[in-house]
């Protein structure tokens, strides 16, 4: 794709919202004032001492941070390297998603918003959003694909119990992509009083940067914790799964400009990259525009967005965040395609070796360890992004 943007030396977002060739704000005029309001204010709001105090306090007392950095001894022995697990699965609501929703709801409050709208795929982001809305007493509307509503019933029930209204997205394929479209439409129709909490490092600028900043707490902690445990801040590798890529963005964030740290992203290959049932975006995609940013995108030759597939609903997305597209394009990040079968095996493996049942999304990151040709002296941090309770019915089908 042609571009006239200046090449960047760092991995920070540019003033215009680009990471290298990727990012920007490709939005209809109807969304411009909303996004512009956010763009003009988000950095100042986040920098306010009162914001930081409230954010840190909630991360500590409500989310349960810092999450442990756990040395997985039996897994280390099996893999043949030193493996640390960053335990985001121990966050309130069971995954890293709440780091972002806490941050965004505090921004929304400071912008004077009365209502929150969000999209969700598997329901994890929907639950994390409904949770913070309950905490702050804001109205909450969650769009979820009609098909996902049927296959993720426990999370739908959790959202409703938390007081959210769950609205089915019945357009298109009725999954995450369409829920995102519907949430955007809702925002277009309610521009003044509503804030849209996007759940990943996707969407128009400034969302990818804002979400990455809220998730950056993951690597802020892991550096400090690794220093205590190993006498060094930098591991040799950081590994995370990438759907949209929010846990990976957070796990990578404070290592982006540390060239000795190799950043490993695990994408969902579904039944196999070439099977026609896959969500391995960098393997199958081309540059394109979706949900407001220029990124790498699974699409037809005519530029129609392709329906992805993965056993893990959280990785079942046809694009990736623009930061990750830039990591891929620049070679800073290394991307592995992990099949359903590999992920399931890795999930069972961790459960038996360490007594931790990981989310199916996270299991993709764990499976990547088997393909990385690690050596005994390597120190690896794996972002254990979520717990596997929500995936029990899928796991038990393969017991």
């Amino acid at each position, binding site marked *: 794709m042609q571009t*006239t943007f200046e090449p960047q030396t760092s991995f920070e977002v540019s003033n215009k919202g680009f990471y290298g060739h990727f990012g920007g704000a490709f939005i209809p005029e109807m969304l411009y004032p909303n996004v512009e309001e956010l763009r003009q204010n988000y950095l100042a709001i986040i920098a306010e001492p009162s914001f930081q105090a409230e954010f840190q306090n909630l991360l500590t007392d409500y989310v349960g941070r810092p999450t442990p950095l756990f040395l997985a001894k039996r897994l280390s022995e099996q893999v043949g390297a030193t493996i640390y697990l960053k335990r985001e699965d121990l966050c309130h609501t069971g995954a890293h998603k709440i780091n972002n929703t806490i941050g965004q709801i505090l921004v929304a409050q400071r912008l004077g918003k009365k209502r929150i709208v969000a999209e969700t795929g598997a329901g994890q982001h929907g639950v994390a959003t409904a949770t913070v809305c309950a905490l702050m007493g804001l109205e909450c509307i969650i769009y979820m694909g009609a098909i996902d509503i049927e296959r993720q019933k426990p999370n739908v029930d959790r959202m409703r119990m938390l007081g959210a209204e769950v609205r089915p997205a019945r357009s298109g394929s009725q999954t995450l992509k369409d829920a995102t479209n519907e949430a955007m439409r809702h925002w277009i129709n309610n521009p003044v009083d509503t804030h849209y909490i996007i759940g990943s490092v996707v969407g128009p600028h400034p969302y990818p940067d804002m979400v990455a900043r809220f998730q950056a707490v993951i690597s802020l902690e892991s550096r400090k914790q690794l220093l205590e445990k190993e006498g060094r801040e930098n591991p040799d590798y950081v590994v995370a799964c990438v759907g949209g890529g929010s846990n990976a963005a957070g796990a990578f964030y404070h290592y982006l400009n540390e060239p000795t740290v190799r950043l490993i992203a695990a994408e969902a290959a579904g039944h196999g990259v070439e099977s026609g049932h896959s969500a391995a975006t960098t393997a199958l995609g081309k540059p394109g525009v979706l949900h407001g940013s220029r990124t790498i995108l699974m699409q037809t030759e005519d530029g129609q967005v392709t329906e992805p597939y993965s056993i893990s609903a959280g990785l079942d997305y046809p694009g990736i965040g623009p930061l990750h597209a830039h990591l891929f394009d620049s070679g800073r990040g290394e991307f592995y395609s992990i099949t359903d079968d590999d992920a399931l095996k890795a999930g069972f493996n961790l459960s038996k070796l360490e007594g931790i049942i990981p989310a199916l999304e996270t299991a993709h990151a764990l499976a990547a360890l088997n393909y990385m040709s690690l050596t005994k002296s390597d120190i690896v941090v794996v972002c254990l992004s979520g717990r596997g309770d929500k995936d029990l019915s899928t796991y038990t089908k393969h017991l």
Partner: protein
Amino acid sequence: MTLTQNRINDLFAQKSERLLNVYFTAGFPQLADTRTVLLGLQQAGVDLVEIGMPYSDPVADGETIQQSNGVALDNGMSIRQLFNQLDGCRTDAENPITVPILLMGYINPVLQFGVEAFCQKCQEVGVDGVILPDLPFDLYVDEYKAIFDRYGLLNIFLITPQTSDERIRFIDEVSEGFIYMVSSASITGSVSGISDVMKAYFERIQSMNLRNPRLIGFGINNTETFDAASANANGAIVGSAFIRHLQEQGTSADSIQRFVNGIRA
């Protein structure tokens, strides 16, 4: 500033009141219906025709247009196919198309086709302008305007009740053809009628004395709303209501004439 030689600019030079622009989705309801509907609209006397290039994820559109996009894609519609269908429409021996044509769609399929190749094909088949709601205005100015200009293709921009005066001035300065006034904060097909809030917005824009003509779209679906829009701008754009009509009443010349008569009496 001299205006580009273009059917849209010619139209507004001749006519400034009660213009009717009708939208339909290419390849809908059937793949081969594009030319039929286009001719039907011309014969029914509409002033401009906006042809939708279907897209899998049309976020600025409501249910009606999204569904028609889905049907058209299932029918095998694509930009390539659309150019094939439009090829020769301006020189057709029996029924030459003389009405200005706009293509409306989303940026990704255009990027995949290639922006320059797209503009070139537009010129070849006689397309006069495009509406790409998710192409950011500043990016257009920085990267693509020179290409559009080279092929005499106008890019029409949207403004909404939330668009600042400053931004409207900027859009008015840089674009030509007309300005597409979105009647309210909404997606297509989701509102009907003209409220007091909308009237205040129309009057604000009217008082800005913009250099470009203005057409009002979103929520125009009968004579009452068409008249109200025409009282506050140079005319109006109808989309979802026409898609519903095609679905229910078919694509015959009679059916299309009936629809147009029901909007602009």
